[in-house]
């Protein structure tokens, strides 16, 4: 059973844990705890991006689906990651399906609430980007390598 409070859970997180205690309390004001079972859909492409998930434990598959083909997993994200960025870009739509591969524990931050707090306190918003951007950049870098097909004509 989870006995930690939401601020404690956020303070333990790889990215959000870098905020000071006051900012963590502010963020916690937008937060709720979530659990998903293996196989459960966490977010659906095209749906309003009302939540951003701060992943604590478990693995999540980012999927693209189309008619007549089974969903393709393009990336997996894990405990320590933040799931979703559609909540930040108008018109705030979820960009991909996300499905729990294992049991997933996460904290969901209400997107409108979070945007509001960042607007009210630009320093909080700036720090959020400062802490989150390197992580997003690493994911972009990885996806470029993925597209480059590293093992295409490889040797050992």
């Amino acid at each position, binding site marked *: 059973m989870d006995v930690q409070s939401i601020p404690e859970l956020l303070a333990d997180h790889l990215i959000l844990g870098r905020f000071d205690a006051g900012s963590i309390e502010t963020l916690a004001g937008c937060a709720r705890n979530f659990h998903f079972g293996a196989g459960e859909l966490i977010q659906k492409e095209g749906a309003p991006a009302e939540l951003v998930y701060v992943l604590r434990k478990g693995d999540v598959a980012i999927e693209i689906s189309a008619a007549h083909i089974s969903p393709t997993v393009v990336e997996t994200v894990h405990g320590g990651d933040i799931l979703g960025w559609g909540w930040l870009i108008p018109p705030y739509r979820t960009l991909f399906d996300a499905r729990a591969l294992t049991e997933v524990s996460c904290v969901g931050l209400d997107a409108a609430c979070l945007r509001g707090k960042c607007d009210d306190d630009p320093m909080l918003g700036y720090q959020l980007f400062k802490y989150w951007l390197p992580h997003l950049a690493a994911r972009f870098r990885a996806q470029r390598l993925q597209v480059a097909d590293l093992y295409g004509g490889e040797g*050992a």
Partner: protein
Amino acid sequence: MVARVPETARIPSALLPMRARVAHRRQGPDDVATLSLCPVDGRLAPFRPGQFNMLYAFGVGEIAISISGDPGNADSLLHTIRDVGAVSHALCQLQPGDMLGLRGPFGKPWPVDAQAGRDLLIVAGGLGLAPLRPAILQALAMPERFRSIILVVGARSPTDLLYPEQLRDWAGEPALALSVTVDRATPGWSGMVGVVTTRLARALDRCDPANVSALVCGPEVMMRHCCLALEDMGVPPDAQWISMERNMKCATGSCGHCQFGADFVCRDGPVFRWDRVAARLRIRGI
């Protein structure tokens, strides 16, 4: 009368292939074959993880292939070969009972022994698992000597994963923290998706980066990005090693075919410390 061969005309033994017979052959993934070889002309010198043999397909040619067997088992002479051209194709076609020529072992090994007391991180991309397999087996034969042993394996897709049975065994090995990821998932794959670099931070989340030693093998781009990512995480550049490939002829440091900057890959490598080669790997065409 038996004619005496003048001393100067004798071929040094390192240049003289010995015969070996294919004992077993395994096809896959795809255009890759793994041959288990049995020397015909006596016993081979013991090899160290990371070393390679020159394999000679009679009448076709000779190429460098890493040894991927168990260094603790003198009879385990295994080579995993991808069919990319004339010689590798001829070798991949060999069947049990067929003969080939073999020289070596050659080259500098992975410095596994010297990493005692450290967190040993092994990162294999694609066929790079073949030269690393002996190093993994060596480490697993003495796990108490390392603070931890971590293996990150990446492949293009689940069907491209090398040694799938071995990976299943290693997944249950308590001394080994294994993480497998693919660039492209296929239906039914429930594991990780993303390039190997995405697994590194998590693989090391219980380690002090300064105490990590990394052995990295795969395509050159992958090794470069892995080592840079490890450097960004704080793993010292002088605690990372990669294995290089260049065309080879003599394999003994005599002909210069495998020159890579100031080094000959056959003699000074194929295993190089990252800080020695990092700058050179950014120069195109070298």
